[in-house]
């Protein structure tokens, strides 16, 4: 069969392969190369070595975007996962309406980042103006917490669904055995349920951390980095470096930032996967 199928390569693989090369592989290779060049268009490039990387690390805005992103990622990852897990625990109890509640909490996840950003901008600005505080465009503290609240609102439902499916896979006889042995509900939670849903925790941490680092649409729509780049995250900073900074050197620096960003995301994902995988138990 392998032989017969081999002849069909052009039909089965070629369309995807060509699109994959045009849409991903070629831009990726070109991107790595261009991070070592100065350029304004792709046709006119001069090789400058690691100069772009040096400039990227010296760019104060990039540094502040990095700090903002890390602090956002840590806080939002913890908040989202704790709240989603608590919700999942509650909604797997015997109670009327759990299905409706699950439906409602999951819904925001389907709405796109740009739309979510505007909905929350309207809401947060309304709250701020009623409290007599400066609006989002001038208020970096509100911007920071605004993005965190927005991301919680969007992602809690998603993570809740994953935790629910993990909790439902915990074998009932284990919990029964524990309760016969006299375990309190709290002990059951920490000694049985938590270790058993470790695979779900791995997945959810992976998703929330990478989503937090890659966040762009919500950041653009909610604050657009205002005031004065104080709420600008890495992805938005790279975008602005490419398209809104005057001077021939910035596109190269933007590409260098993008490579740094890429390495960072991959490194975090790998470290995090290894760390939580080692804590998983076999069923």
């Amino acid at each position, binding site marked *: 069969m392998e032989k017969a199928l081999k002849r069909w390569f052009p039909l089965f*693989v070629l369309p995807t392969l060509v699109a994959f090369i045009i849409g991903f592989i070629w831009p990726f290779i070109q991107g790595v190369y261009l991070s070592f060049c100065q350029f304004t268009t792709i046709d006119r490039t001069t090789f400058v070595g690691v100069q772009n990387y040096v400039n990227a690390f010296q760019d104060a805005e990039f540094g502040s975007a990095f700090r903002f992103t890390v602090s956002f990622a840590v806080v939002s990852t913890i908040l989202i996962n704790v709240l989603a897990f608590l919700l999942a625990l509650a909604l797997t109890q015997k109670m*009327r309406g759990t299905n409706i509640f699950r439906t409602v909490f999951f819904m925001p996840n389907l709405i796109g980042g740009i739309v979510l950003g505007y909905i929350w901008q309207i809401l947060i600005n*309304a709250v701020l103006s009623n409290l007599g505080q400066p609006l989002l465009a001038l208020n970096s503290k509100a911007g920071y917490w605004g993005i965190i609240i927005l991301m919680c609102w969007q992602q809690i439902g998603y993570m809740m669904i994953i935790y629910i499916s993990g909790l439902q896979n915990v074998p009932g006889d284990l919990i029964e055995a524990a309760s016969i042995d006299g375990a309190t509900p709290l002990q059951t939670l920490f000694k049985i349920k938590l270790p058993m849903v470790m695979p779900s925790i791995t997945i959810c941490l992976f998703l929330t951390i990478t989503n937090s680092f890659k966040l762009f649409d919500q950041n653009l729509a909610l604050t657009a980095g205002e005031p004065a780049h104080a709420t600008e995250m890495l992805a938005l900073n790279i975008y602005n470096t490419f398209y809104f900074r005057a001077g021939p050197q910035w596109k190269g620096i933007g590409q260098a930032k993008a490579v740094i960003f890429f390495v960072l995301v991959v490194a975090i994902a790998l470290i995090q996967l290894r760390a939580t995988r080692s804590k998983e138990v076999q069923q």
Partner: protein
Amino acid sequence: MKKKNGIGLLGTIFFSVLAALYMYPIVMVVLNSLKVETAISTSGAFELPTGETFAGLTNFVSAISSQGFLKSLFYSVFITVTSVGLILLCCSMCAWYINRVHNLISKLMYLLCAFSMVVPFQMVMFTLSNTADKLDIFGLRFNNPYTICFIYLGFGAGLAVFMFSGFMKSIPLEIEEAAMIDGCSPLQIYFKIVLPILKPTMISVGVLEAMWVWNDYLLPTLVLDIKKYRTIPMLIQYFRGSYGKVEMGPMMACIVMTVLPIVIIYIAGQKHIIKGVLDGSVKG
């Protein structure tokens, strides 16, 4: 075994209130979209529309007639449907091939697909939009809403091939071999045997890719000419751009018209959507 002493009625009441609060941001936009332009203010977003400020559907009419909402809706629907269709067909065929034919290309393709899922879009943002702008294959350009689907096929291939491959491993080879002996060509085997077995995975992959393409903002913004073509996320961002005063009423109406179909589709296909999201999360 579920616990017998669940949290009962009190829990139901508590979560009903919480769920209502959770939905409030959307309700608020719906209420504001029904107000007249002058009544929509930053601080008054919480006020309900009253007799004087109630605008009926005028905001919706003006969003459709003067802001080009229908055109954007058409582009968004077209791009989403075509891209997802292309991704499902091409990527499932590709995944079948690389799981059945064991050579270097197959292995490489699989690894690259897995790799492409962690790469942030900003890494290829500039070069991809440049490629899409410049590339000209016998007069075929990639900077319009009809061919951008091909770019989506390339960028969505990672997740799709990866997920299809994962499922493909569980299909017993014997069925396909039996069909082969009976004289089926690979094309017939694919369409008559593999495709029907793949159907549940198809739905999951379709849900995930559709959610991504429908909500995607950056790729169409960079690739398409914003003066000519605007998808819905682009339209909403464009509203607020530096083009004079922002008309809040029609913008709210646009948001409502974007969100409501999603809510309706979600409620109708909830089972599939949640299964799709769960299947997709296993990739972690």
